[in-house]
């Protein structure tokens, strides 16, 4: 059965800290791995990763994929209170299906 596992489930840090969020997966016919940020209700897209070893960056956020070990990490440097959210990892499969398989998310709380 396809699964996506995120760790930790929750994390509390102080402003300025650096955090690393983890995502491991087991899916058949892997196509891509995606990270979303969910504040309140609507998840917003952060990154899509398809190739191993190529880091994607956007400001203080970065992510990398390891297709051999079947995991990805999301790094946030110099955290701010506005980074507080649930971070969702999802995997898409090739073939006819277009659905995403999500993990349960990591709840990040950044304290001032």
């Amino acid at each position, binding site marked *: 059965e396809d699964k*996506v596992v995120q760790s930790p489930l929750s994390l509390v840090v102080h402003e300025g800290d650096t955090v690393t969020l983890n995502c491991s997966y087991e899916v058949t016919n892997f*196509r*891509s791995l*995606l990270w*979303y940020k969910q504040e*309140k*209700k*609507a*998840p*917003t*897209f952060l990154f*899509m990763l398809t190739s191993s070893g190529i880091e994607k960056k956007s400001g203080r956020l970065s992510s990398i994929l390891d297709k051999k070990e079947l995991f990805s990490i999301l790094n946030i440097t110099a955290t701010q209170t506005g980074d507080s959210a649930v971070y*969702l990892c*999802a995997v*898409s499969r090739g073939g*006819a*299906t*277009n*659905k*995403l*398989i*999500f*993990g*349960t*998310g990591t709840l990040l709380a950044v304290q001032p």
Partner: protein
Amino acid sequence: GAGVSQSPRYKVAKRGQDVALRCDPISGHVSLFWYQQALGQGPEFLTYFQNEAQLDKSGLPSDRFFAERPEGSVSTLKIQRTQQEDSAVYLCASSSGGSGEKLFFGSGTQLSVL
């Protein structure tokens, strides 16, 4: 529209009632998805439309759940004879291409069945 719009934002239903949840995707987006998110969990796929065609409904939990997108734009998710286990946030998402990857999500409808 500027983003994916869902209505109502909140819905309280008595067990056994029928409900209808509406999704207005980003104009021109071909693909539309419905996901169900229980408290403390990640979203779970329900169904997928490409234009007006429902190409995948494998995630619908029972035959009480029905979705349509008759003109390839607005979509409605209908739940008949609601049960307490249907309580969740129902998220709609759209994307411009056939891929279900870079999705734009709406703010969801929070359904509470009493």
